[in-house]
């Protein structure tokens, strides 16, 4: 059972959250210009690392906040990700 750090509510039980997948992906700026392979990559190929994964969570049964965190996919350790600057840098 995970205890996830909601930026608004603090640590809460995983039951209150919805996992929304990879956080590193950005929707391509101009999908019309992509090849099928590139579009496929965006739609269907998740990062799926065996290790630290940057992902989105939704505190759906709580304050409704969306946020990102890093979770280790083997040990299930979680660590918060600063919402703004550091996170955007990581994306690039």
């Amino acid at each position, binding site marked *: 059972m*995970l205890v996830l750090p909601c930026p608004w509510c603090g640590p809460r039980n995983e*039951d209150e959250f919805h*996992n929304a997948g990879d956080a590193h992906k950005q929707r391509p700026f101009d999908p019309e210009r992509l090849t099928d392979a590139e579009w496929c*990559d965006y*739609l269907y190929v998740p990062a*799926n690392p*065996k290790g630290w994964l940057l992902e989105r969570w939704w505190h759906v049964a709580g304050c409704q906040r969306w946020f990102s965190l890093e979770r280790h*996919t*083997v040990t299930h350790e979680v660590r918060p990700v600063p919402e703004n600057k550091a996170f955007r840098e990581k994306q690039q």
Partner: protein
Amino acid sequence: MHRYSLSRLIRNALSGHTQWPQVWRTPDPKPAYDVVIIGGGGHGLGAAYYLASEHGITNVAVLEKSWIGSGNTARNTMTIRDNYLHAPSVRLHRESMKLWRGLGRALNFNIMLHERGMITFLQSDAQVAHATRMAATMAVFGSPYILLSLRELRRRVPHYVDSVRMPVQAAIYHPKVAMARHDALAWGLARAADARGVDIIQNCEVTGIVQENGRVAAVETTRGLIRANKIGMAVAGHGSVVARMAGIKLPVETWPLQAFVSTPMKPVLNEIFVVAAYFNYFMQSDKGELVAGGVTDPYPSYAQRGTPAIVEDVVSGMLDVFPMFARVKLMRQWAGMLDITYDNSPIISQTSLPGFTIDVAGSGGWKTTPIAARMHADLIARGRPDPLIVPFGLHRFATGRLIREGGVDASR
């Protein structure tokens, strides 16, 4: 191969079962093979077995990082069924069920296959409509999927209790659903492949995939470099990890799927049961334990344990129709790793790297083991996919011809 028979059993009984020969060899890896299979589970051992038995390719090694059948071959709930929604899936699973039926005899090994039948409780109009549609699809392929009235359901299952929250409206019966023993499958395939000359190399983890002149050339392992210009990957749960070694990004994500068993009790359930409203299933094993499972965990993970919230959901669904199990005690719990594709269908395919083929993402690949292994072997031997598996190629993600099976699995 040392054939198993009644007379041999009697002879060995007279010598106190101390004279049985070793079932397969433990060879050291040779420097090169014609084909290397990565993964010593049902799919990998099966691919080697079919390469040797149907294509005469016996200079084959199966590399397993642990002991054979120790991965997700041992982490499923052993159910074999073909109730799917789309034609390519029904066809594939139906062919698989045919192979399963003949496998014990072909391998001269008792895989403990037995038909149990599966009954799905339907608790809403939508579920009845969906089941009716699936029955129509399956009728096209000659697979019986029978809607049961409440009276017929009560006759077959006299001890179920109607749900207060969601009254049972009907049920759908799949008489051909079978179970087989997972260890027996791995051992039977290993024994038959070994007898035909295949090297089964355990405790040998693949750590890298070597390319030369634009095609696959060798694997780096914890037991040294092994050369082969045809390499087949039959890995579950870690498919994307191994494929990355070959520079291939697979459209799969690793999700845990849990199951658990109770302490053993006397026979009480004959069929396998699914409570559609809860997306769970349960049955009684040959050993008398209740076996139950449900949906995948709520987030992707490589940790082979799973979250307790799922256990609670599954148990509440089971108790809704069988409250008599309320005081049964759980004994073991585990999580298998699924490589889940966006469309919940397997990938049996060539890749962008010539010579490197994959058989992954069964989304619970136990039931497809024989057919996937046979088709993978065929793909390796002939270099082109059989029409049966063309729809399951990697190309489907770029072309958009997905085989959307999410939601029809018994468990989700």
